[in-house]
C-alpha cells in the first residue's frame, strides 16, 4: 500500500485528532488541535497542487491562518481569562477514550471500504477514512468531556472532519462557500467564547453536566 502524499497527510491529521482525546489538559488539547488543522491545511494545499484548482490555495491559507492559528490563540486567551487549566473530569477516562478513538479509526476504515462510489478514480478511501475518524473523534470529545471549552474543541474537530471529507472527495467547493464556512466557524467560536465568560460568571464553573440546574 503506497500512500499518496495527501492521504498520508489526512491520516496524520486524523492521528493528531485522536491524540486530542488523550489528555484533559486544555492547552495541550488546543496545541494538538492546531497541529491537526495544520495537517488539514496541508492536505488542501496538496490537492490544489494535484488538481490545479488555484482557489484551493487561498482556502488552505484561510484554514491555516484562521483555524490553526486564530482560533487556538483566541481560545487560549479565553482559558487564561477564566483561569481554568484542565477539564474537570471526563465521563470516560482520557486514556480509554483515546484508545476508543483509535478503534474508531479502524472502524471508519472498514466503513469507508463499504461506501459505494468512493472506489473510483482517484481512489481516495484513505482520505474518507481519515475524515470519518475525525468525525467520530469530535463526537467522542463532545460526549465524554465536561468542560464547555472541550465541547467547542469537539465541535471544531467535527467541522474539520466534514471539511476534510468534502475536500478529499469532491476536490473542493467554490471559494465563496469555503470562505463563508470559515467565517461562520470563526463567528461561532467567538460567540461560544463570549458565552463561556457568561457561564463562568453566573455559574462559577464551566461544567456542562451541571448546567441543567436552574440558578439566577
Amino acid at each position: 500500500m503506497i500512500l499518496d502524499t495527501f492521504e498520508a497527510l489526512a491520516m496524520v491529521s486524523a492521528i493528531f485528532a485522536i491524540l486530542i482525546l488523550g489528555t484533559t489538559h486544555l492547552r495541550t488539547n488546543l496545541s494538538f488541535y492546531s497541529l491537526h488543522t495544520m495537517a488539514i491545511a496541508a492536505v488542501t494545499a496538496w490537492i490544489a497542487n494535484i488538481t490545479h484548482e488555484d482557489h484551493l490555495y487561498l482556502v488552505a491559507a484561510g484554514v491555516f491562518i484562521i483555524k490553526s492559528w486564530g482560533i487556538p490563540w483566541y481560545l487560549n486567551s479565553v482559558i487564561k481569562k477564566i483561569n481554568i487549566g484542565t477539564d474537570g473530569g471526563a465521563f470516560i477516562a482520557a486514556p480509554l477514550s483515546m484508545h476508543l478513538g483509535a478503534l474508531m479509526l479502524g472502524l471508519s476504515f472498514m466503513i469507508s471500504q463499504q461506501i459505494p462510489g468512493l472506489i473510483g478514480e482517484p481512489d481516495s478511501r484513505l482520505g474518507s477514512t481519515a475524515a470519518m475518524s475525525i468525525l467520530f473523534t469530535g463526537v467522542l470529545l463532545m460526549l465524554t468531556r465536561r468542560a464547555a471549552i472541550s465541547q467547542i474543541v469537539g465541535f471544531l474537530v467535527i467541522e474539520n472532519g466534514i471539511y476534510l471529507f468534502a475536500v478529499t472527495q469532491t476536490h473542493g467547493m467554490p471559494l465563496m462557500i469555503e470562505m463563508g464556512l470559515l467565517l461562520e466557524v470563526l463567528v461561532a467560536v467567538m460567540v461560544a467564547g463570549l458565552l463561556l465568560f457568561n457561564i463562568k460568571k453566573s455559574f462559577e464553573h464551566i461544567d456542562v453536566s451541571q448546567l441543567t440546574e436552574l440558578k439566577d
Partner: protein
Amino acid sequence: MIAINTEAILETLAFVATFLLLPPLLVGIIRKTKARFQNRIGAPLLQPYFDLMKLMSKGETISKHTSWIFRSTAAINVSLLIILAFLAPWTSLRPFNLGADLFLVIYLLALTRFFTVLSALDAGSAFGREVTLALLVEPAVILCLAAIGSVSQTSDLGVAFSFNNVSLINQPGLWFIAGCGLFLASLVELSRMPADDPTTHLELTMVHEAMILENSAANLALVEYSHFLKILILLGISSQCLLHAIPFFWHTSQLILALASILSIMILAASIAIIESVAVKLRWTKLPEFIAYSVAMSIFCVFIALSKNLN
C-alpha cells in the same frame, strides 16, 4: 555462519567494542545536555566511566539478611543484556545475525527486570511502582514490534530491521509511528523523566532508584552498567525504527548506516535530556495518560499492518 577472515573479525571487534564502551558515553551526553540547559558547565562527558571505575575499587557492604540472589543479580543482568546486545537490532551494523525473535528480545528485557525486582524483594526495597509501569508499557512495545514483524512476514527482528526487506521499504508511516511509540515506551522502561526522576534523593518519589538502594561498590557498578546498556539497546531499537522511515538510508552504504545509527542514538539521548529539562515528572495518577499515548501509537501500527495485510 561466521566466515573466518580479518574483515569479519574486525567488524565483530568493532561491534563488541561499540556496545561495551558506548553506554556510559550516552549517559554522559544526557547529563551534559541537562547541565547546559540548567546553565551549568556540568561534569565532563566521560564522567560515567570514572564513576564506574571508582565504584569498582570501593569496599562493598552487604546486608546480612540478603541471600545469593542479591549478590548474583547484577552479574546476571549484565550478562543478559550483553546477550540482548548481540540479538537485538539496536544498530544497523551487526556482523552476524543469530536470529532474534521479537518475543525473545522483549522477554529477555523482562527477565532483567524480573531479576532486579527479585533482588529488591530480597533486600527489602520498594519495587511495586516499577512493576506497575512495566505492566502498562509492555503491550505498547509488543504491539509495535509485532506490527513490524507482521508486515515483514517474519518474527525475526534481525531480518525485519535489515534494510533489505522489500515489504518494508515503502512504509515510512509505520516505521515513524513505531519509532515514536517505542521511544515513548522506552522513556518509561528506562525510568526517565515523565515517569521517574533519575536524580531524585527522596525515596518516596523513586521508581528505579528505590530498587537498587542496597547495592554498593562493584555490585552497584554492575547494576549501573546494566542500566546504561539497557538505555543503549532501547534507544537503539527506536532510533533504528526512525532511520528506516527515511528513504535515503535504504540506498546508502554500510559505513554511513553504521555511523548514522550511532549518531541517531546519541541524538535520542540528547532529546531525552531536552525532555527532562523542559518537562516535569508527572503525578503518579497521571502516568497512565502518558503511557496511553505510546499504546495508541502501537494501535496505529497494528492498523497499518492490518490494512497492509488486507490489500
